[in-house]
């Protein structure tokens, strides 16, 4: 070997592995928040690397809104089986049935905001003291100030003004009973880094990320997939388009883009010329300028 420096992707990988090993050492009962999206897939892969040849010492936790893409659930179940991990599911439907939350009404009703209650309930009932997420600082302005180790109080809430300073690579995960941490190992990755990494590592990802034919409806400047949960407005039509998704959320709020990219290589090329942010197709972020900050304060992902 002639060079003694890492390229940027190796350095990001090494940083994330370091963070995941700190989680294992500093917490009793950590879980990986697994959505089936590319970021949580990358985090799970990094956890494999961090503890190889041992098994990942965390369970996966999925907040099931009941409005999932069927492909996402299939992907999740296959992954769990392959890695031999335990899956914890928090069900939004159950939270609704138990009267913990009420379903939103109207045309733009989603279950996005309801997830927070289910997530916090699942964290509490499973005595989770650390939830590892795939959040990235480049995603959104409220996330630009997020720590690697992000402290949550008794109520699971985030107080941006009262975060612990984080210096060098020394992480302070000390907490009291009932509190928990959110940890973000890929904080410093951008969307492009994630795609370059998925291509380099040849990771398997849900088919939804690749261009495919789908029935869609044009709403809020993007192609929303048609599903049983969608109520059509009089002026809306179902069309057939070749699309793919840049992010995966609920089937009711995740907009697709028209695309021909049906291989990882083509996706990487497409993302590198993209002129819109990936969350631009998420109607949950369009509700207000501080939509993400407000949800984060309440305990959202």
């Amino acid at each position: 070997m002639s060079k003694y420096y890492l390229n940027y992707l190796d350095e990001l990988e090494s940083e994330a592995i370091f963070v995941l090993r700190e989680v294992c050492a500093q917490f009793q009962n950590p879980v990986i928040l697994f959505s089936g999206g590319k970021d949580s897939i990358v985090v799970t892969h990094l956890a494999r690397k961090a503890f190889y040849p041992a098994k990942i010492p965390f369970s996966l936790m999925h907040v099931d809104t009941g409005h999932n893409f069927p492909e996402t659930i299939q992907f999740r179940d296959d992954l769990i089986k392959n890695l031999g991990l335990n899956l914890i599911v928090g069900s939004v439907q159950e939270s609704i049935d138990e009267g913990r939350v009420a379903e939103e009404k109207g045309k733009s009703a989603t279950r996005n905001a309801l997830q927070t209650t289910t997530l916090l309930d699942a964290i509490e009932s499973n005595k989770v003291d650390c939830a590892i997420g795939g959040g990235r600082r480049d995603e959104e302005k409220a996330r630009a100030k997020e720590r690697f180790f992000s402290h949550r109080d008794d109520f699971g809430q985030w107080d941006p003004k009262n975060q612990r300073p984080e210096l060098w690579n020394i992480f302070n995960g000390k907490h009291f009973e009932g509190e928990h941490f959110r940890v973000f190992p890929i904080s410093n990755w951008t969307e492009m880094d994630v795609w370059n990494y998925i291509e380099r590592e040849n990771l398997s990802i849900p088919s939804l990320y690749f261009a495919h034919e789908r029935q869609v409806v044009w709403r809020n400047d993007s192609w929303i997939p048609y599903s049983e949960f969608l109520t059509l407005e009089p002026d809306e039509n179902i069309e057939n388009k070749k699309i793919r998704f840049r992010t995966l959320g609920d089937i009711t709020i995740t907009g697709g883009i028209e695309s021909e990219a049906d291989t990882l290589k083509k996706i990487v090329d497409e993302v590198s010329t993209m002129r819109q942010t990936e969350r631009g197709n998420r109607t949950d972020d369009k509700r207000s300028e501080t939509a993400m900050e407000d949800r984060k304060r309440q305990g959202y992902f």
Partner: protein
Amino acid sequence: MIDNNQLLRFTTAGSVDDGKSTLIGRLLYDSKSIFEDQLEAIEKTSKKKGHEGVDLALFTDGLRDEREQGITIDVAYRYFTTPKRKFIIADTPGHVEYTRNMVTGASTANAAIILVDARHGVIEQTRRHAFIASLLQIPHILVCINKMDLVNYSEDAYNKVIDQFEEFSSKLLVKDVRFIPISALEGDNVVNRSTNMEWYQGAPLLHTLETVHISSDVNKIDARFPVQTVLRPQNDSHRDYRGYAGRVASGVLRTGDEVTVLPSGFTSKIKSIDTFDGALEEAFAPMSISISLEDDIDVSRGNMIVRSNNKPEVVQDIEVMLCWLNKTSSKPREKYTIYHTSNSETAMIKELIYKIDMKTLERNTNDDTLNMNDICKVKIRTTKPLMIDSYRENRTTGSIILVNDSTNETVAAGMIV
């Protein structure tokens, strides 16, 4: 994307008046790192506020409280990539009361951008920024003399700032300082070379960031491997494997190396260096690996594996330059948990030797209270030995934080002298 592209982390210190937000906005905008929907949102806000054109500073707008009060509360991280490198900006507010944020941003930086208003020259704040950059041992300092458009792009104004800066910086420990005349607002010498300053022979800011030599920023001499956790798979293919997982803090480790485990002092040889992607012959900082040893000796989290012919100091008394980060003040004799690499022990601040007056940068020996944003030299005693190097030699094994056990908050950050 070229395989050898490196990651450069830099910090920008300065207040709104220095044009810091405009500079970051300019870097992101001119390097085409801003998306159309972000641009549209900024254009809308600029218009609402009655600005002419696009106010680049709005790109770095953060949380609601900050927007309402027009200030920056916290360190924000921003990202951009050029065909040569990936960049992480730690965007920190520069007021005197935010010393703690500057220290935070500086702790991981390869380079610091210090902004100077060409009209005002070096001011108290410039000296403070340079002092913190040198205290945190940021390897490269780029002094950007901004608003050159407001002094008619005058070479004299530029030279005056260099003279002022060198007058006081000769007393600081900085290795690499460069001076770049820019106009963030007009874009001169930020990404593109300025045509208004033919007298300037150096490179524009972005080119400097893309080419400055950073491979040597990490110590590659002293092999230090703090153990984070022990891997014991106990599965069929790895029945007896015992791997010590961690990130190489500095130096290079090779299979067959004679090593010592600290603090126990047991010696052994490196049997293998393992990763998910296969075994390696050698590993260097900052790689995350796991190590197995020839001998079955007791190794656990908090231990450090080092080459037997090059060891750190193993001590319980350390002198530290401490930055106090918490609203609750402290005095000597208070106890805390000290975090150092993968170790944590109980520690006591034994003595406050002096405090730096952040206005004059002079030492003050008549005050023994540690208040938020203070920088002090202190003596600390720990209940068990730590394996340390001086911060000047090693930013990883030379740094500590203090945690208050009754609140669990991180209250101080320190650099071992």
